[in-house]
């Protein structure tokens, strides 16, 4: 009887520890989630608040003096809508090109029978670890004749070596038997890639798609360096300019009043909303994709 009681007691004790652990873990996760969310919530609140409330630091979580004029102001700005178009277009084109080229490079590198595979892989890894630097890269872009063109936003960054390695490992995780049976059925390499490898690596590809899309959407440095035509500037460059105006010194910008903090917040919202809209649709693949590609191989 005593022994039986002890066993029950032990089970209850273990369960309580687990519960406490889970509650603590949940609290910690919620805590960090709130920390991550707070700045975003504040930016949203500022975008919908009156200038005076924002300037005097009264807006913390909820908007005060609710107004949509800052968003309207941003939407009415010629440069903003133009930059949004460039950002959307470049992100779509870049992501498609990047995914296609990454697949086409990763697939052969994942085939163990590829001659000189290791040497080729070394070439990829080497360029990831030791890139040419900004001046040589600029010279390459110049020699390609794409300086100050839309393609300067696409071609120079179109393949990420890191993403190639992730996808190579993703492809390596697919059993060789599937390729062999497809070959026996008369499939060519392109058919195998498109019909077998790509569908089986969907999670990894979804993750890479997000990596590429986010990197292009947020990228501004290459645009500033390679492009002179302001009509080709993507959104992050314009956002930086709008925020910079608020920080700038008089003699740098002495022509009109700087945008208020609320206007700056409204600009930030427009830049992050598209990514936030897309993210939930890809999120289910995201963790799985990175794990698949990263662990195996």
């Amino acid at each position, binding site marked *: 009887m005593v022994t039986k009681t002890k066993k029950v007691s032990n089970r209850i004790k273990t369960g309580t520890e687990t519960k406490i652990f889970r509650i603590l873990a949940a609290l910690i996760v919620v805590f960090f989630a709130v920390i991550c969310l707070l700045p975003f919530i504040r930016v949203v609140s500022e975008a919908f608040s009156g*200038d005076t409330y924002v300037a005097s630091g009264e807006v913390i979580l909820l908007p005060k003096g609710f107004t949509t004029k800052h968003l309207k102001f941003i939407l009415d700005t010629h440069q903003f809508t133009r930059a949004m178009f460039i950002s959307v277009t470049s992100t779509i084109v870049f992501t498609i090109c990047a995914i296609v080229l990454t697949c086409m490079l990763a697939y052969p590198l994942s085939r163990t029978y590829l001659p000189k595979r290791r040497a080729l892989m070394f070439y990829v890894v080497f360029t990831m670890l030791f890139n040419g630097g900004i001046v040589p890269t600029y010279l390459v872009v110049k*020699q390609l*004749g794409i300086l100050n063109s839309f393609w300067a936003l696409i071609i120079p960054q179109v393949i990420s070596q890191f993403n190639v390695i992730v996808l190579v490992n993703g492809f390596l995780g697919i059993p060789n038997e599937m390729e062999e049976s497809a070959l026996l059925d008369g499939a060519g390499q392109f058919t195998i890639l498109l019909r077998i490898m790509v569908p089986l690596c969907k999670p990894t590809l979804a993750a890479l798609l997000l990596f590429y899309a986010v990197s292009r959407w947020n990228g501004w440095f290459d645009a500033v360096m390679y492009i002179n*035509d302001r009509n080709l500037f993507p959104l992050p460059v314009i956002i930086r300019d709008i925020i910079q105006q608020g920080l*700038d010194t008089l003699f740098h910008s002495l022509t009109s009043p700087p945008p*208020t903090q609320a206007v700056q917040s409204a600009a930030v919202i427009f830049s992050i909303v598209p990514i936030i809209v897309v993210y939930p649709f890809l999120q289910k693949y995201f963790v799985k994709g990175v794990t698949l590609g990263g662990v195996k191989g």
Partner: protein
Amino acid sequence: MRKLKTLAAILLTLALLVSLVGCSGGSGSSGSSSNPSKAENTTETSGSTSEETSEPTSSGATLQLIMPSNVQDFPEGVTEDNNFIVDYWSEKTGFKFDIVVLPNSNAEEKLNLMFNGGEVTGLVFEKDLTAPSRFFNQGVLQPFDDYMDGSFFFETYKDYQSKGVIDGHQYAAMIVPDGIPCSSSLYVVRKDILNGIGITEQPADFDAFVEMLRTIKEKTDLIPLGVYDAPSNSSWDTIAALFGVAPTHNQWAVRDGNVVYRFTQKEGYDYLTFCKQLYDEGLIPQDTLSLTFDSLTQLYLGGQVATLVQDSCWELPNLMPASEEKGYDSRFMDYPTGYYGQVSTGSQDRFFSQAIFLSSLAKNPADYVKMLDFLALPETIEVNNYGIEGEHFTLDDGGNRVLTEAGENLQWAVYYRNIFPPEEWYPVYGINANWAEYYYPSERHSVGATDFDPVEFMPQKAEDVTKTDELKETIIDQFYAKALTGEVELTEETFNAMVEDWLASGGQQIQDNYTEQYKAMGSPDFSGSYISYLPAEHPEYTGKYLWEGHE
């Protein structure tokens, strides 16, 4: 197998090197990727050679002009190459233009890349006065020496050109359009609060100013004086200048014929002692070192600060209306007279100037000097600064320009307003940009100074400026901040130790360099150069924010 791997690695490395060399090959000779057809308003991408850019003849040659960065955007239908200003230039000179506007962010890196990539084949307008020195060191500039004789530009602005001489040659053409040699800092106060505690007059001198702060502390719960950052930084400009020390500008002075760094002089010690007194008495925020411009503004608008030093009037078009909305009676208080008789930053501060330099790849330098001459013509300056008469402005009975609606929307023209005499400064920026209400109050104190900064008139060597900034950050700022909060005891001994450290760390060398340059110039007295070009009349200005209203 191991040998094969090694061989493959070597071959790949060689391939990399060869491809890099291949990429850089011809970049110099290809010159600019600038597209001359841009001047004809097409949207083709760059990548063409600089053949047209290098045309030796004036007529029809394409000149590349690289304009300084700013934040203004071009409206729909207007681009840097396609607007009435460039059309006017083309019509009058016969040149075509490839205009490049540097980005607002990372302009320095961009210009550096463009030079390295052989993309700069013409004239560069730069606000960074160390740029000529940096690019001279890279060997990518050519001097104007052979083309200066008879040049209208160089004749008109000859007084400034000593600042553009590097290694005995005129590598930069200098222009000083700023007609008001002072900073734009303002002292903003809550008049409603001050009146409420019996302060109805502005403090006439420095002691009265300090007494006013003490009264605020005694009779209210507010922080008497809002400042942020270390006392050696720009936010303290107004206070520092009362002691003859200006944190961001005017850092150098002539003492006994030698150029010295003001922060290391007795006035620096006196100033720091005063800052510490303010801190110890609780007259400034105790967390001043961690405050920022934004957080201090929030404190002011949040009703926690009674008076506020604004190191720039740039934010005032936002601050003052917000303050009014809060029901505050915010005004600009006059600067008191300092310990040394100074009238704060109004009397001695910076000149805003620009450097213009020519790429070594420009094969038609005479054409570029002709262009400078054209830009210096009064009629060109009028078009650049105000637009076309009848379309962008009209003349009233007194001969004053009155902007039309189209004229008021020419903010983008700022990129083309690089050359004009100081008399134009206030009309262009003070009145036409609707800044008079905020700008004029800060500048109306500008008077001829007697304690000038000689370095303002010298070529800015990049290495000296960089080293000065580095020493300021690592030694001056550190000591001033720590002494303020008491982390370091402030005595003459500790101050002198800091000065010794600064001198030994490279400060002595910089002082010697500047002294040598100053003496080579004949030890001139530049005080007469600090001339204010504020207009006698300024009808657009109401003065509603002054303590006493319009004067």
